[in-house]
């Protein structure tokens, strides 16, 4: 039945999007402050394993979630120190942290494969869950799913309606100007990166404690990179992160349901032989998995080429380290 297919798809989409929402929101904050964090994938895995181990040992998934966040923040602190204080290349530092996170978690995580935990249970919101089609998808989720959703308006409010948010944006646009206005550029950048890392750790912990409820080395499967792409796709705006996460999550969910999908034209339709192979290719789930990346490249190119420099969505000082006495 079409509606149950759609409902199932929606359910899977919403579930898949949470990890992306956590990670991308955190990365938005960090990049708004001018620091690119390519270590999200590594922080995610660290949060996932750390949270998982904590849950196995203590039996508390909430404690595990907290541990995941803290571990993400610790790794992010290292990134902040390298990039802000030592003024190192942000790309290298981020890639290094991903390698480190992936390597360490695979190394230490072998022994935890196959362990069972009691993860986050589904929490139903009465009445709303009975809405047709959308009810099951949105209102029967884990606590962390709801948390991620709640964080979208919170991050939006933080960035655009608070003084700290204004200062965060300013150090990512023009750190020199912010400095002359008395903003503590170093402190704001450190905070932004560490908070971003906490979000990445939360994404990982959600992955192992709520979404999949297991641990396997490399289980993030590139979601960290998708989150980085998502930030660009969303033009550094929290509300667009939500939409983008759903789109990317949808593509992810579609991949698993490829067999039930038949998007080709019927044999009677004119030019079916010409279009069908093309349609098959375009809607092939593996090919669809590339669309988030291609879309991001297109969005980025558009943003850079077509927009006047003072209206670029990209934080103007992204990737630039700041030092007061340089010309």
């Amino acid at each position: 039945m079409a509606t149950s297919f759609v409902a199932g798809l929606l359910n899977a989409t919403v579930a898949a999007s949470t990890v992306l929402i956590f990670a991308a929101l955190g990365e938005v904050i960090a990049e708004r402050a001018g620091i690119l964090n390519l270590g999200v994938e590594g922080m995610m895995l660290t949060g996932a394993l750390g949270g998982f181990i904590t849950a196995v040992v203590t039996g508390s998934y909430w404690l595990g979630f907290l541990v995941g966040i803290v571990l993400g923040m610790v790794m992010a602190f290292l990134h902040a120190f390298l990039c802000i204080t030592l003024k190192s290349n942000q790309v290298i530092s981020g890639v290094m942290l991903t390698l480190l996170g992936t390597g360490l978690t695979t190394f230490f995580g072998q022994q935890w494969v196959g362990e069972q935990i009691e993860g986050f249970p589904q929490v139903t919101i009465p009445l709303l869950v009975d809405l047709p089609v959308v009810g099951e998808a949105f209102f029967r989720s884990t606590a962390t799913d709801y948390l991620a959703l709640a964080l979208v308006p919170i991050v939006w409010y933080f960035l655009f309606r608070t003084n700290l948010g204004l200062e965060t944006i300013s150090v990512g646009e023009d750190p020199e100007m912010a400095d002359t206005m008395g903003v503590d550029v170093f402190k704001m950048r450190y905070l932004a990166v560490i908070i971003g890392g906490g979000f990445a750790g939360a994404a990982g912990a959600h992955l192992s404690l709520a979404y999949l409820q297991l641990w396997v080395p490399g289980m993030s499967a590139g979601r960290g990179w998708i989150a980085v792409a998502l930030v660009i796709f969303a033009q550094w705006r929290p509300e667009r992160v939500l939409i983008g996460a759903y789109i990317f999550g949808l593509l992810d969910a579609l991949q698993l349901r490829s067999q039930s999908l038949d998007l080709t034209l019927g044999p009677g339709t004119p030019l079916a032989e010409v279009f069908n192979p093309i349609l098959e290719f375009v809607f092939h789930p593996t090919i669809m998995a590339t669309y988030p990346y291609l879309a991001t490249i297109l969005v980025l190119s558009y943003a850079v080429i077509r927009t006047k420099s003072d209206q670029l969505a990209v934080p103007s000082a992204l990737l630039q380290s700041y030092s007061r006495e340089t010309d």
Partner: protein
Amino acid sequence: MTEAPFLRMEEIHKEFPGVVANDRVDFSVRRGEIHGLLGENGAGKSTLMKILYGLYSPDGGDIWLDGTRLDLESPQDAIDAGIGMVHQHFMLIPRLSVTENVVLGEREPAGRFRTSMGSLLDGLVSRFSLGLEEPADRIRDLAGQYGFDVDPTAKIWQLDVGQQQRVEILKALYRDVDLLILDEPTAVLTPNEAERLFESLERLAEEGIAIIFITHKLKEIDAITDRVTVLREGAKVGTVDTADVTREDLAEMMVGREVLFDLEKDPVEIGDPVLQARGLRARDQRDIEVLAGVDLTVRAGEVVGIAGVSGNGQKQLAELVAGLGDPTDGTIELMGTDLTGASPREFVDHDVSFVPEDRLRYGCAADLSVMHNATMKDFRQARFGANRPFLDYGELREYAETLVEEFDVRGVQDVRAVTAGDLSGGNLQKLILAREIYRDPDLLVANQPTRGVDVGAIEFIRESILEQRERGTGVVLISEDLDEIVDLSDRILVIYEGEFVHETTPEEADRERVGLAMTGGEAAATDGGRDPIDAGRAATDGGGAADRGADGR
């Protein structure tokens, strides 16, 4: 009536590697005074003010404000002390609104959250909310009070340049400053806008705010300052009451009268035009016009000296005729060939040489060897292996060594091991000059060739330019050093605000008049400047129109 100075900077000293930016400078300002700070580029005005604003820390000296000694470690300290600064290059975030830009750093909480229930709660509230409504109202009030026309909710990128500058000023006014520093504020304003700015400044001064006004334009000093301090080469020349001096006096203080060298200049037969540029116009990144229709002809064997204070369009002119960037209007012809809009490579191939003002940025690759830097324009020539697959590095090395020897570049033991960045300023400039001259160009464009160079190298560089002139090269010499222009040029042009405003020769040059033209005095002569001597001149000369930008002898 004497008044104890409100601001007192004593024996301020600041050095950077290779240069003394402030040489034990004393500077004081009274309350309610508009005090001009005059000097050429590199004189030390910006550094002194950056120290006052907490951006730099001085190597020596003290700052006293209203009797209290200040210890400024960051701009926040300066703001807390009541010092505000309006920067020449706007410090505004285009994406944010006027109010957001003005309020940044103040951490005012949103109106409905205002509490007075203890500092901890206040701190949290101010961090986690953003007050925009009350500040917007206050900005509207301030703007009205001083005659600014600014909508607090507009985004910066929507405003024009004049309005953006007013936002810069509002940033300071909003914080109840006692002392306001303005760094070359009229550089981006139309004359009308400048007038209105001056009116506002006078109103501010009436309310007791001390104002420091940095400029290199004499007419502005005349227009609003009470006193003026002149800096030159890092040291203070003097402080005078504006009413007691003429523009000529100020020009002299700013520009100096020392004749350092006695150069032998042989007469040379001047040949056909090498460069013919007509109607050149250019804009900078802020889309402000910096060249307003310039004609320039240079003949073989002729040195055309362009005098002017940095920032009047020389840099763009130099880059255009050397091949970097395209003019928005106008044509460039080299030895009869039209090269308007051509690539840098074509200019190089047509024997144009360029000694840029920013030698580290455009003139050399600091991490690469002397050999690389010596050959960067000529490595494609046949003698280095153009017709063979490999570059003849042996030849490159020899070429570099020849240059080093003939141009007395010191500190180079091995042209392959020593990098351009290892050389001192003077030796690097000699290397760059060597590279540009040795290829025997038709046109040589030299922008500030002796700036930041030690005395011995200066003499060598100037003589090299004269020698090249004898070989028939046409030279465009741009310099802030009037002596250099007078000693080396066959013709002298003065550039001001993107136009040539005066033309003369070394024999006929009236040092003071040139100095005046450099600082806008000449232009003011035609709009009836306030200086009585000047008004007299305007009457007898028939104005400067006959001297403007003309060329075509």
